[in-house]
């Protein structure tokens, strides 16, 4: 394993410390228990927005803490949900009296730990709402199953819910908007090469020299199928067709298109995918009115990418365009 780290068990802590030092004008890092809040402190009367989950997906979520987006991020160990206590403390830290919304990617660990934290917060009198993000169409819905994973769509939910909270919307409204966005975004990813989790010391899975995993998760969990690596056009087709058909996106509708790198893919390749995705949507009469391309929801140094499509409306567009000032997303977004 080759990594620029001091010790596999200290990566998350060391990294958070660097993050806090580098961006002290914008964020404050609480080292124990570990969470990140805005440097400006809590905004009285504003609904607090907390997200979190396993580390290894940077800049998610810490890179999105700041005016117009999250109030706090709670990073767990690498690829492992944080326990309830730091979530609870972050929730306390950002409660400005208007309650706190938890934005949770749908993984058993995240769900259970946030659930426990929310119970404790409620017991202390902090009003909380939970919003599940489950945008990954690689998996089928089915009653009683763990269900779809939360992947790159999380970023869009955080941005738009953040704008609503910043605009002074109440707890239920912010939660409702977040849920609405979560319901209007779908994603699917592909992996070309596995990441290596520091404490595991070797790649999370093995892929043949010409194999790719379609429908990969952001922890290297497998997806729909392994196929031969095709052209960018072929891969894009495999990713985006299930996305738009699951969304039931039709001719004439407006959409936001997000091409997200998994960490180890050159930016140039993401733009190649973007061009292909754009062509495909154009041909179907779907109007891409907003775009985002970059490494936002990553899986360490995994080589691969995901494509997300969010059905837009006037309200969502307005909230998307609202000012945001975080380390990794800054307006104007265009």
């Amino acid at each position, binding site marked *: 394993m080759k990594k620029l780290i001091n010790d596999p*068990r200290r990566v998350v802590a060391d990294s958070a410390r660097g993050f806090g030092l580098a961006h002290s004008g914008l964020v404050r890092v609480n080292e124990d228990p570990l969470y990140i809040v805005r440097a400006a402190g809590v905004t009285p009367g504003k609904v607090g927005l907390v997200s979190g989950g*396993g580390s290894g997906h940077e800049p998610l979520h810490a890179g999105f803490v700041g005016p117009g987006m999250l109030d706090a991020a709670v990073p*767990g*160990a*690498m*690829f*492992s*949900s*944080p*326990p*309830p*206590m730091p979530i609870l403390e972050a929730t306390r830290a950002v409660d400005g009296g208007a309650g706190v919304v938890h934005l949770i990617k749908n*993984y*058993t*660990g995240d769900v*259970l*730990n946030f*659930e*426990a934290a929310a119970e404790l917060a409620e017991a202390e009198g902090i009003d909380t709402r939970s919003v599940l993000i489950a945008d990954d169409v*690689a*998996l089928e819905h*089915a009653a*009683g*199953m*763990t269900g779809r*994973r939360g992947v790159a769509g999380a970023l869009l939910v955080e941005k738009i819910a953040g704008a609503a909270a910043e605009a002074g919307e109440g707890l239920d409204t912010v939660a409702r908007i977040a849920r609405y966005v979560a319901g209007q975004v779908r994603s699917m990813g592909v992996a070309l090469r596995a990441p290596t*989790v520091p*404490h*595991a010391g070797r790649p*999370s*899975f093995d892929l043949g020299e010409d194999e790719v995993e379609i429908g990969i*998760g952001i*922890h*290297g*969990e*497998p*997806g729909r199928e392994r196929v031969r690596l095709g052209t960018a056009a072929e891969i894009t087709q495999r990713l985006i067709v299930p996305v738009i058909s699951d969304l039931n996106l039709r001719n004439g509708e407006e959409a936001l298109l997000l091409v997200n790198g998994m960490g180890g893919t050159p930016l140039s390749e993401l733009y190649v995918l973007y061009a292909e995705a754009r062509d495909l949507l154009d041909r179907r009469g779907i109007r891409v009115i907003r775009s985002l391309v970059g490494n936002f929801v990553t899986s360490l140094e995994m080589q691969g990418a995901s494509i997300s499509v969010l059905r837009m409306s006037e309200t969502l567009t307005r909230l998307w365009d609202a000012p945001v000032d975080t380390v990794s997303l800054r307006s104007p977004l265009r």
Partner: protein
Amino acid sequence: MSEQRLTAVWVQDWMERAHAVFAAERVALIELDRAIGDGDHGENMDRGMTAVAKRLAADAETSQETPTPAALLKTVATTVMANVGGAAGPLFGTAFLRAAKATDSVSAPDGELDGHAVATALEAALGGLQSRGKAEVGEKTMVDAWAPAAQAAREAAEAGGDATAVLAAAAHAAEEGADATVPMIATKGRASYLGPRSAGYRDPGAVSTVLLLRTATEAALE
């Protein structure tokens, strides 16, 4: 009818053994989780049990009076909850918490545990983790080890087994339960993402359950 009762020393001994076993099995559990999950289960459990051992040792140093098993189990629960993370943290944490609560009400006046109390604790643990995780038997999770373990424990207790015998029966049943997860297709937890491809592997959480119950038995044998 046995007179054997489990004390706080048993919990301490159990947790030291568990600490050692999870350190030793760390990589094996990572490999199991790597096959059908995200490869962190061994790391999570090792981190958690290290914290537990440290916490119990520190408490033992400072506290004057002997604690009850239930009090120690509650410390284990909160330490597991706070340090394991992932799915396993709140699940095992809740299991220990419910076990602590249950033993509090069924144990002898001095807090020590007989076979019946152990069976009750295991049933409560199962109930706790099912109320959190919503998994039924057959979904390829730790429930597939805990459920037969709790049932075997109750049967052993009914048959008059002492605490050690009850734990041994539970550990044995858990082992069979863990093995039985191999052909299953997961419908809960991270392995469910694999669908049919999840078949062919033992569930890591079920294996950790076996390790917990086995070390509990060994500690009781002392």
